[in-house]
């Protein structure tokens, strides 16, 4: 180790329940240098940095800061060691001014009153090239200004080691340029800087070295000058792993959904789904790949009528039983009644689709209560269905009325997916159906989806794991920034190809 090493991580391991987020990760962070931490979603980039910031505590392994072994128990310890992390979700108080946010939590001491704080902040701003109105309230700020404020905040606290979690995700190209200039200024001033990212072009533009993580493992560190996009992609997505998932080819296919020019604009006035067009057939699984937040959720919700789609969007549904319908403009209830079902598993698993305090029967009933006659609930049928789900999917629950909130994650997901399947869908859309599940339960769910496919259901599978997407899907649609960046054949597609499409928007529109 030389004098330039700011932080050394040795064999860091961190698990959340059964899931290993980091396993034996070792690398070092140096002064006068910008290190890019590269990896797919769920590769453990943010987790390992959170351990430096004092948010998580490693299960195993050692951390050395400036050559001394340290134990970082909470954010305060991290500050004291000069480590500052800028999270993706900014930690700012909306109703406070910039200056108030900067001094928050600091002990009033020498030269720390508001007036001298202001002078010091102004010094920092002019030194690195920040522009900031210190009396502006945070709620009046743009995202970029908030980010600037976060960086000033950690610098004011004397951070020498800055960690930025996906700093460009929310910035315009011009703002990104400005940020990069500032980052370079900080590096030239002797700071150690880590950028967590999955954007290859930015890695190549700004970093000096790149450390790559994959599925919680440390893959390698390379000098940016000596590498290229292709090598980085390979390191990031890894060798194709052959998974033993059945994939039958169904000969008889019918067009079910014809999505054309679907556009969704969210509350922040951002186009989250941008002119998406594709077809969906019965007897196939259409995989949707993309970095998280590329519009997967909004796309599915727009089809289900849960999100407002913009003028010009069209989703035409071809059904043998119900005829041909334009779904845009219909209510979710009508769309469900035509046989479209969505099983979305959000990050906290329970947030959508199930009521945590209710048992299986009641949760099944949530989608059927209108089928009864009169004002009373008819529990017999839903109960039978709950029994069926429990037996078929081997849901481990003490009773049908046991609150699903108390079940393990895998069982909760089985209930959710099982309910949608048992409602006999013609189109079944699932998102992150295996999120956080162990391997056996995951396979149970893959088999369920395959079975549906065999029964002539059109299945949409939004997933995070590329290996699974490649093994399960008949076709793969790649989303990038809300746009369709390519539709590939699941049997012939290469992992690198999908990885490239996920991270780099193709120039011009080249649909299929």
């Amino acid at each position, binding site marked *: 180790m030389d004098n330039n090493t700011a932080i050394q991580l040795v064999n860091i391991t961190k698990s*959340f329940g059964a899931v290993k987020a980091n396993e034996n990760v070792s690398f070092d962070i140096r002064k006068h240098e910008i290190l890019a931490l590269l990896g797919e979603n769920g590769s453990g980039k943010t987790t390992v940095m959170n351990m430096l910031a004092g948010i*998580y505590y490693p299960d195993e392994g050692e951390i050395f800061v400036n050559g001394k072994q340290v134990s970082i128990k*909470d*954010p*305060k310890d991290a*500050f004291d060691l000069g480590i500052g992390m800028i999270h993706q979700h900014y*930690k*700012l*108080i*909306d*109703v*406070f001014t910039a200056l*108030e946010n900067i*001094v*928050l*939590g*600091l*002990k*009033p001491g020498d030269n720390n009153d508001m007036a001298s704080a202001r002078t010091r902040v102004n010094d920092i701003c002019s030194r690195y090239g920040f522009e900031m109105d210190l009396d502006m*309230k945070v*709620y009046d700020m743009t995202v970029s200004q908030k980010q600037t404020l976060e960086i000033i905040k950690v610098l004011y606290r004397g951070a020498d080691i800055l960690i930025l979690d996906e700093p460009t995700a929310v910035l315009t190209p011009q703002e990104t340029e400005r940020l990069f200039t500032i980052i370079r200024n900080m590096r030239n001033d002797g700071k150690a800087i880590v950028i967590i990212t999955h954007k290859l072009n930015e890695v190549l533009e700004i970093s000096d070295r790149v450390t790559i993580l994959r599925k919680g493992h440390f893959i390698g560190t390379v000098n940016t000058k000596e590498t290229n996009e292709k090598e980085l992609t390979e390191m990031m997505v890894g060798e194709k792993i052959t998974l033993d998932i059945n994939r039958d080819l169904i000969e008889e296919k019918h067009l079910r959904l014809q999505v054309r020019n679907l556009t969704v604009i969210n509350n922040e006035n951002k186009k989250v789904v941008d002119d998406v067009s594709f077809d969906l057939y019965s007897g196939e699984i259409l995989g949707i790949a993309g970095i998280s937040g590329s519009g997967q959720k909004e796309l599915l919700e727009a089809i289900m009528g849960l999100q407002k789609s913009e003028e010009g969007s069209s989703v035409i549904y071809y059904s043998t039983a119900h005829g041909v319908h334009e779904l845009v403009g219909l209510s979710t209830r009508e769309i469900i009644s035509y046989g479209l079902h969505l099983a979305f598993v959000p990050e906290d698993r329970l947030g959508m689709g199930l009521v945590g305090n209710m048992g299986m029967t009641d949760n099944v009933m949530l989608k059927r209560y209108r089928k009864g006659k009169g004002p009373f609930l008819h529990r017999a049928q839903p109960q039978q269905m709950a029994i069926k789900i429990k037996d078929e999917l081997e849901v481990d629950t003490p009773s049908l009325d046991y609150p699903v909130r108390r079940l393990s994650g895998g069982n909760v997901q089985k209930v959710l997916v099982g309910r949608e399947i048992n409602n006999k869908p013609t189109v079944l859309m699932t998102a992150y159906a295996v999120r956080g599940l162990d391997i056996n339960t995951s396979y149970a769910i893959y088999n369920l989806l395959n079975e549906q496919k065999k029964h002539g259901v059109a299945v949409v599978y939004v997933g995070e794991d590329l290996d699974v997407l490649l093994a399960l899907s008949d076709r793969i649609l790649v989303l990038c920034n809300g746009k369709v960046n390519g539709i590939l054949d699941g049997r012939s597609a290469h992992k690198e190809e999908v990885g490239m499409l996920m991270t780099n928007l193709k120039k011009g529109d080249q649909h299929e």
Partner: protein
Amino acid sequence: MTSELLLAWISAAITFGTVIMFGSIGETLNEKCGGLNLGTPGVMMLGGIASLAGAFFYENSVSNPNPVLCVIISLLCCIIVSALAGLLYGFLTITLRANQNVTGLTLTIFGTGVANFFGGSLVKLSGGVGQINVAATSKAFKAMLPVLSDKLGVISKIFFSYGWLTYVVLIMAFAMQYFFSRTRTGLNLRAIGENPATADAAGINVTVYKYAASCIGSAIAGIGGLFYVMDYVKGTWANDSGIEALGWLAVALVIFTSWKPKNATWGAYLFGFCYWVYLYVPSGISAFLMKIFKVSKSTYMQNLYKMIPYLVTIVVLIMVSSHKKRENQAPASLGVSYFREDR
């Protein structure tokens, strides 16, 4: 309307306002730190009964009670018991992360019950209803400011004819405003009420702050109960939960002031003024209103008058939320328990 009537009305409003101002600034302290303590009415009941019990036993144990000791003993009893109630609330909502609304309402029921239970015992000990008497303590609390209270004629009568706690609470309200807006500790405390995760990340000890806010806030609110017992009802006790009714107005006043203690300094008196409308409103106006609203009995009209403070609060709430000025809104994390996120 005669000037005596107006004077009596002002005087009643100020005494009333003092009770709820204590409750309100105590509750504001708690709410600014994210704790929605709906137990404030109960805490005020506990503070009231504790001060009464302390004074009662002291006065009964000596033949010639010392007024300074009277004040110290009853204040100490009040503050300790109220702070303990705040500690209980804190333990349930901060450490055990129980639902704040349920905990608060339960604390109100608990406080009211305990206070009335011991109130009944004290009444029995003193020999019957209306017999309880802590005259010395009450007198000590009703002591007015020297000079100001008798040398300024009508000004003395309007502004300085009240017990000294009336002026203490005003100073406390302004002091708390200064604390919130001008001190580091106040800034940290407000940060917790807005966004505890951010405050935590900034190295602020969220738990310590929340406990402190709950205990100190409750102690301040409890003094409102003491003032009610010693000044408002002149050192007696009736099991009518009168304090509780005022306690709810104290909670409403927090919203009315948009969480700014400085606004409580006039808002509390305004509430008092509105509350006593039914007693002091000129009969001509009352008769006219009864005609318009087709109210047949004057007691019905009284109940309508008593609704005015709540109506005012509702109007203010609507105005504040339609105004959308962020600084006037409730603290963003009010009523939400905080625990450091784990996956």
